[in-house]
């Protein structure tokens, strides 16, 4: 296999992984605050449509991304109100969010099917992008790819090095203790859900703005579920989400190029890998129960102040 092909494949893997990075981090921040949101898929597709519509109207990329984040946060707000204020079951509410998001995006997006977003210019990083093979593969991407890496690092820093991150983790690990210490459990979770929704929205928008770049009904194609799997796979750590996303993204690309690479098994077997890997990771993590690798202790539990 020649070097150009390897470079192209690495480039494609980063592009395929970027929506997963954003959506995975969006799921992660919520889960670290103790919120299990199964609506990531719905948040992604709504973000995908919002970003696309703004891009079609000739606005710059930054504004499209803001629109996608806003749409994701707005939809996530419904989830937050239902789960936090009305104490609705989070599992079912997340599912409703996915159904609703997919439906609304298809309904209002039908008129945009067939249109194509203006191309996003790559930012070639000087010097680094001149490295043979790897330079073009790693350092000649659109701004969102760099943004996703930056976001993972920032989230890691926030969770582990700041007071705000400590409070968020406290709320996720033991909401009663956090409440007793005077922190607003509901407030922290509201913020986490809206921020997570915004990130998932941007992840969806990456599909319509860069990767495809057009809008089709149901185009997130299960990536929201993969993102949830990714968080488990990454043992709830932001930087591992980044690595996991690239691993899952590689599987997708491997599948596309499996014939060119001389792999002769059915594509479906390869597609199963991320899901199976997640189950295995989940079992290993749950069985070991090693501190720092297990799920946030209050994940998915309803918090009531009166208790």
């Amino acid at each position: 296999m020649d070097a150009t092909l390897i470079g192209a494949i690495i480039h494609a893997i980063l592009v395929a992984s970027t929506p997963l990075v954003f959506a995975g981090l969006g799921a992660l921040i919520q889960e670290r605050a103790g919120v299990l949101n199964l609506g990531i898929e719905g948040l992604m597709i709504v973000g995908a449509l919002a970003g696309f519509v703004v891009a079609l109207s000739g606005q710059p990329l930054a504004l499209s991304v803001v629109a996608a984040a806003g749409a994701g946060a707005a939809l996530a707000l419904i989830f937050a109100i239902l789960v936090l204020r009305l104490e609705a079951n989070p599992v079912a509410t997340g599912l409703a969010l996915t159904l609703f998001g997919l439906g609304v995006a298809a309904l209002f997006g039908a008129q945009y099917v067939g249109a194509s977003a203006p191309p996003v210019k790559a930012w070639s990083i000087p010097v680094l992008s001149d490295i043979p093979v790897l330079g073009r593969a790693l350092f000649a991407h659109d701004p969102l790819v760099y943004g996703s890496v930056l976001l993972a690092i920032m989230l890691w820093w926030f969770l582990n090095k700041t007071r705000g991150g400590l409070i968020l983790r406290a709320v996720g690990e033991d909401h009663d203790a956090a409440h007793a210490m005077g922190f607003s459990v509901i407030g922290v979770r509201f913020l986490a859900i809206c921020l997570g929704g915004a990130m998932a929205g941007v992840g969806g928008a990456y599909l319509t703005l860069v990767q495809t770049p057009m809008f089709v009904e149901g185009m997130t194609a299960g990536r929201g579920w993969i993102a949830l799997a990714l968080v488990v796979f990454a043992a709830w750590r932001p930087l591992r989400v980044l690595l996991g996303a690239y691993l899952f993204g590689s599987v997708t690309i491997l599948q596309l190029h499996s014939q060119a690479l001389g792999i002769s098994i059915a594509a479906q077997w390869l597609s199963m890998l991320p899901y199976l890997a997640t189950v295995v990771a989940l079992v290993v993590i749950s069985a070991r129960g090693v501190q720092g690798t297990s799920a946030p202790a209050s994940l998915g539990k309803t918090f009531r102040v009166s208790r």
Partner: protein
Amino acid sequence: MLRFEPRAEVKWHHEWLAVAVALGLTAATVSAIFVLLGLDPASSLHRIVIRPLSSEYGISEWIAKATPLIIIGVALSLGFRAGVWNIGAEGQLVVGGLTGGAVALALYGISGWFVLPLVLLGGVLGGMVWASIPALFKVRFNASEILVSLMLTYVAILLLSVMVHGPLRDPDGFNFPESRLLHDAARLPRLFDAGRGHVGFIFALVFAVLGTWIVKRWHLGFSMKVSGLAPKAAEFAGYSRAHTVWIALLIGGALSGLAGVIEVTGNIGQLVPNISPSYGFTAIIVAFLARLHPLAVVPAGLLVALSYIAGEAAQLSLGIPGAMTQVFQGLLLFFLLGAAILVNYRLRWGGPH
């Protein structure tokens, strides 16, 4: 200020109040969406809900769609009562359809009364095997059954795809990813002359009654309920949590698998890559709409099945995307979950006492 105040006593009509409020709000929001799309709500609703049901064919199709929803909804309402979150019923349905369909193909051409029961059994066992994976991992390693069953749903869909593209493909089918048509001995009889309504609906009704009986009369139903509502109390009473997890998931797998094989033998008549329009996920809405009462799953399943019929009609006669079905289902579930607070709380004006 409007605020929530806990009810001193929860009566049965408070549950139906919540459901009525949710249905009212859903109808209002759907009407608003129609107005937003430039359609007249009343005549649109008439065209997509009343007209499709005003023929024997329409009723038959309605029943065909309600059948899997009710069968799975009954199983999930039992499991959810026990606090076992089997979100992967869709995967169990797909595997049940696959294994049941494979049995039917293995018995291809053989006639006799025993063929259909074997085929159905194949589906039930397939679903149970698939559901036993999250059960085992939950009991043995404490791995979340929500995530494991969900992940396995995607594996199941891919597995079905591999099989119909490969080993189970019709040898004379010009390489289309479909199995051959099942022979008559492996098909569930139809209920009507028109449409696809089949005997599976009778099964669904039987399971709803059986489920209610388990909940009301059997010790098993009671121990599952306690295990879900008060895990500590259940532990003191000597009810094993592992037992509850196994039972809930195995019932879920068995009935979802049955729903799958019923879809294949009653409705579709062959194995195709896509045997379910997310019935397994939609059945979760059905279970909640029924407020986890197995008997109430029947009207709930019929109502939600109507959203599939209405979605198809909306596509054909109003020219709006079939995704209207998902919008309706999502909204209904939102409002149901939100309105559920009215069961335990009442709305009051004024500040706290």
